[in-house]
């Protein structure tokens, strides 16, 4: 079976599942919306309008406070929420994708080497532990405290923060796999380390990798939102979902929709990626099939 047909058949099987298809469509629509943001909104996401602060959206139609055109209302500075949601999504999705890719690549390599080679185990895992001892936000805080607040620094921080958890869990799986008898059998047939690692260990660890990656793409999108919420991610006034929630904190009681709307955007995006990954795992993981 060659690689191309393997992936093509995976996608085809994926789209046979209704839930996965729905999520796939939502993600595609979302990508179209955020990439083509100027086509879907006529407002500048950073255009301040002091006269039109905190106007509610379509849900308050009957009160007469709704401004023409602002169907999701305006925020505490009179900026259009729909437009900030679209432009904010650009940043969240881009940072999420890039940092997840960097993180999983480095993490998988380290995890496989550490689990397979006892000599490397200690060195790699202690290195990972050092990264690991700055869990989550902590590493980001150090990097931000060092380099200053910027989107690029936040992306670096999120990539590095994915690495140790990937490496640790993949190592855990590889430790189990290499004790299994079929590895001994393959080895006794004369297979070398590289062959065993790339053909058998990687293949058997793949379900684990997909489960973790599933969680991590969700994690990466949430991480940038968290950093921005703490004021250490995407600098204001650039729209970003976490930053939108953060600046709405003060107006929580007067305008709860400013917190609810961007939060729903995060949850929908992350849930869709999670479900896609989940179904993909069912397809790619023969061990879980009957």
């Amino acid at each position: 079976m060659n690689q191309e047909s393997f992936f093509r058949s995976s996608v085809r099987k994926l789209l046979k599942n209704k839930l996965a298809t729905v999520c796939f469509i939502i993600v595609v629509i979302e990508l179209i919306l955020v990439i083509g943001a100027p086509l879907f909104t006529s407002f500048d996401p950073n255009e301040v309008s002091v006269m039109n602060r905190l106007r509610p959206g379509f849900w308050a139609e009957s009160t007469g406070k709704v401004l023409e055109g602002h169907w999701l209302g305006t925020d505490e500075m009179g900026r259009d929420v729909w437009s900030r949601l679209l432009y904010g999504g650009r940043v969240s999705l881009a940072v999420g994708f890039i940092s997840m890719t960097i993180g999983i690549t480095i993490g998988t390599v380290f995890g496989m080497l550490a689990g397979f080679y006892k000599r490397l185990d200690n060195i790699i895992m202690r290195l990972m532990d050092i990264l690991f001892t700055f869990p989550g936000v902590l590493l980001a805080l150090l990097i931000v405290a060092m380099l200053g607040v910027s989107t690029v620094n936040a992306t670096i921080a999120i990539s590095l923060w994915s690495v140790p958890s990937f490496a640790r869990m993949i190592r855990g799986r590889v430790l189990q796999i290499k004790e299994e008898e079929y590895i001994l059998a393959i080895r006794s047939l004369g297979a070398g380390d590289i062959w065993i690692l790339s053909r058998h260990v990687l293949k058997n660890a793949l379900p684990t990798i997909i489960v973790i990656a599933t969680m991590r793409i969700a994690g990466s999108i949430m991480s940038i939102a968290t950093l921005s919420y703490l004021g250490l991610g995407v600098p204001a006034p650039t729209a970003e979902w976490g930053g939108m929630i953060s600046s709405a904190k003060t107006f929580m009681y007067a305008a709860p929709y400013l917190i609810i709307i961007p939060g729903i955007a995060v949850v929908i995006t992350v849930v869709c990626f999670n479900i896609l990954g989940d179904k993909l795992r069912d397809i790619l993981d023969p061990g879980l099939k009957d």
Partner: protein
Amino acid sequence: MGKYILKRICIMILMLIGMSFIVFASMYLAPGDPAEIAAGPSATAEEIEIMRAYLGLDKPFWTQYISYLTNLLHGNLGTSLITRQPIWSELSIRIPNTLNLAVAAMIFACVLGIPLGIIAAINKDTAVDNALTTLSLFGISVPNFWLGSILILFFCVKLGVFPTGGMDHYFWTAIGFSQVFLPAMSLGMQSAASFTRIGRSSMLDVLQSDYVRTARAKGLREKAVVLIHALKNALIPIVTQMGTSFGGLLSGAIVTEQVFAINGIGSYLINAINQRNYTAVQGTVLLIAAMFISINLIVDLLYCVIDPRIKYE
């Protein structure tokens, strides 16, 4: 085994030294000037220089690091640049709040997450399984600061049943429980959901193994097969996840403390960063790191206990 533990403790001390170096170096390389911050906004250039000499910041990097390390070995985390108080005494009154929150969140996550994972696995491909799997996906997908805000909006503003913030009692007391309930729920939700997912997939893996088939074949009841034979092996990935999660809870607490106005080490750290209080940042980061290294050691030791197939020298 005893030798292994001893070896790991030595490694842990080495790691703490490595950690202290990384933290010290990164703050040393940070562009701000600690002497200027310590001297205050109205200080003259001369006063700043005096402060620099007083803090020892005019000495070379290695001299500064060695004296920092010596202080650490004496249990001295340094002095806050802003308040001039020992950092340890400022942190030690906040540690109980953060641990209280993190432990409560971990208990919430285990009590909710692990049983749901097992239930999903033994009901594979039924409506129960589908519902739990989908719910756990939502649980993982909710950012803890957003969940916290929504819980406040719903429970505190609409229903008025829990306090909106603050924490000054332990979770096992009645007041403490009401204070910690919402923060622990918003902090622990992601961990709970990941326990359900990992628990389900590892339990399914184990249930298909030969020894489980043997256990069934010799006529054991399903309950005994699942709870006695399968659970022990299914726990291995969950234990890995618990180690990872505890770090997540400690760092997540930094965010949750902001949402619920809890005076813990996370709030202290955020304050220190905003005030560019470098010595306080160093001390707090090292403290969280030390807590987390200890947890990792415990997780690795637990491996040996629950899975003798994994061998250590």
